[in-house]
């Protein structure tokens, strides 16, 4: 079974490039060049130099002892929260900004949900001196105020997306509209493994450093680079794809993708795409998305802005359909409780996104001795307001 992209830009039934003609030249330019540019030794050298000295990689793989004892397994946390800017998102923006420079682009646009990708994009634009415009849903701007301030301080222009549900999906629409209207000098840094081919493949390649390091670190720490389980949360699915990447072809490693169940999968306030979605086209690729019988995209709900998206990347749709990975869901309440538990047992405040992955540990049964890696995709500083309100601190 091929779990990766084929020459036509598809993962099994999913993927492709469903874009209007206005976007074709830009996407085609990327498609023709991305592998060549990424494979170039000078690109690799600069990419790894920045990941090491600017981002602070490799991120630690930390054996969480108290959580391990509680769950009766070896729980390893892949500490993407310790990256510069506080999440895994920067791995991708470093890669894409270097690529945009090679393509001669002068202006960068991005969409953001929780604001982590927006901050990561604004950061690399400041680093390289490029103009930056970030689209963010009006509701997300309200619930992620610290990240909005960070982006502004970094010199980015933050544009409020006021259409539709005013969250990540609509910010993505606005960014795509900007790209249509600026077809020559602009590069669109998509923050997840979504969008038209080659974005899902390109973003997963940049994020694959997560599993590349994990394998090495597991080998050093346990003598075995094969974990029993790998867990990650999924909105669009970029940290999960980075966490899964080098384990996908090793079928002994069980992959678990945790979706945002919101108030509960059947409540009408959920973002659990594989439970509620059907095959269709959104944001340029064929995948699984939450939609009405008429094909209108449904507005999702999650307490976590970074998971509040009605679709998943096409590679996730393929991993789901082929049963290579297991897709599960965790509610708002469960994720917040798991966030508190991790904070008080390990002294790590996780992003609410990452807390969804942690929460699933409660539902697993271990014999003892299994090695389990959880991608701690981001830190919870940005979520303090939500945590404070929920727990009444």
């Amino acid at each position: 079974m091929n779990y990766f992209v084929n020459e036509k830009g598809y993962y099994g039934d999913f993927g492709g490039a469903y874009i209007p003609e206005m976007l074709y030249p830009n996407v085609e330019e990327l498609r023709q060049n991305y592998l060549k540019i990424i494979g170039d030794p000078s690109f690799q050298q600069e990419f790894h130099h920045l990941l090491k000295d600017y981002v602070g990689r490799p991120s630690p793989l930390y054996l969480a002892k108290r959580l391990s004892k509680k769950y009766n397994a070896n729980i390893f946390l892949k500490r993407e929260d310790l990256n510069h800017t506080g999440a895994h998102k920067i791995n991708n923006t470093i890669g894409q900004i270097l690529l945009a420079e090679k393509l001669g682009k002068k202006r960068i646009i991005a969409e953001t949900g929780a604001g982590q990708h927006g901050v990561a994009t604004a950061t690399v634009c400041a680093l390289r001196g490029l103009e930056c415009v970030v689209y963010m849903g009006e509701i997300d701007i309200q619930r992620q105020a610290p990240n909005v301030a960070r982006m502004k301080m970094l010199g980015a222009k933050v544009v409020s997306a006021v259409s539709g549900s005013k969250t990540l999906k609509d910010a993505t629409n606005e960014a795509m509209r900007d790209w249509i209207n600026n077809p020559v000098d602009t590069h669109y840094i998509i923050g997840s493994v979504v969008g038209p081919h080659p974005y899902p493949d390109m973003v997963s390649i940049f994020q694959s450093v997560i599993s590349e390091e994990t394998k090495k670190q597991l080998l050093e720490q346990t003598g075995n680079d094969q974990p029993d389980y790998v867990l990650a949360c999924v909105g669009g699915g970029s940290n999960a794809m980075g966490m899964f990447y080098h384990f996908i072809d090793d079928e002994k490693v069980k992959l678990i993708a945790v979706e945002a169940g919101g108030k509960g999968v059947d409540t009408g306030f959920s973002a659990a795409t594989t439970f509620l979605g059907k095959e269709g086209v959104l944001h340029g690729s064929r995948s699984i998305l939450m939609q009405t019988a008429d094909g209108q995209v449904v507005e999702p709900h999650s307490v976590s802005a970074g998971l509040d998206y009605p679709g998943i990347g096409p590679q996730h749709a393929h991993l789901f359909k082929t049963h290579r990975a297991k897709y599960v869901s965790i509610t708002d309440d469960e994720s917040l409780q798991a966030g508190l538990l991790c904070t008080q047992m390990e002294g790590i405040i996780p992003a609410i996104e990452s807390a969804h992955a942690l929460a699933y540990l409660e539902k697993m049964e271990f014999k003892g001795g299994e090695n389990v890696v959880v991608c701690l995709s981001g830190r919870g500083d940005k979520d303090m307001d939500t945590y404070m309100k929920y727990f009444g601190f």
Partner: protein
Amino acid sequence: MNRITKLFKEKKNNILSIYYTAGYPGLGDTIAIANALEKAGADMLEIGFPYSDPVADGPVIQASSKHALDQGMDLNLLFEQLKELRKTVTIPVLLMGYVNPVLQYGVERFCEACAQVGVDGCIVPDLPMVEYEEFYKDTFLKYGLSNVFLVTPQTSVERIHKIDSLSNGFIYLLSSSATTGQNLQVSDTTAAYFSRIAAMELNNPTMIGFGISSKETFDKACKYANGGIIGTAFVKSLSSDKLNENIDAFMKMFRA
């Protein structure tokens, strides 16, 4: 012969095509607007079926789509309404919208329904050419539907020829790479692009759209193509009271 092909055979220039969103302003206005437009001199109609995430559209058509969806417009209802279309309307009619509603309706079922109600063609901006050729073309042709592709100033010559070879009806030239509703500015580079296309002697006729809002911009479009398409400016002019009077007044700008 398909009505689109017939139109371009009989009329070579000043062809006026009007876009409007089904279900806007009133849920039941679809046929009334078509009748009023034909009476007022439109040569062709593009009826938009609304989608929740219209990435190629500017604020006006986004708003009309949202309004239509909120009122309950969907493809089932639209095809139900269009059963009345050919009782009165004789000019070519295309449906325009995004690919996901078509996929959910079912491609074959969609094409069959188009043929049954007398729709002549489709414009689906986010349906890629390669997908169309591989999976959709035979079905479109089986039901006698034209499929219209877009071309922008950035589209390569090679790709334009490919589009020409896959088109049956006309080619939709965008005045610039833009979402709908911007003003048409015919700069030197746009003029050069339009002239370049005209000089290619394509098999299909061409229509210029995106940004045509006045007699002046329509005439400019007609200088370089067989006609022009008006969308946003028309949708903006619509209101529920005095629907027919407003349409007449709008159309007088172009068909005095």
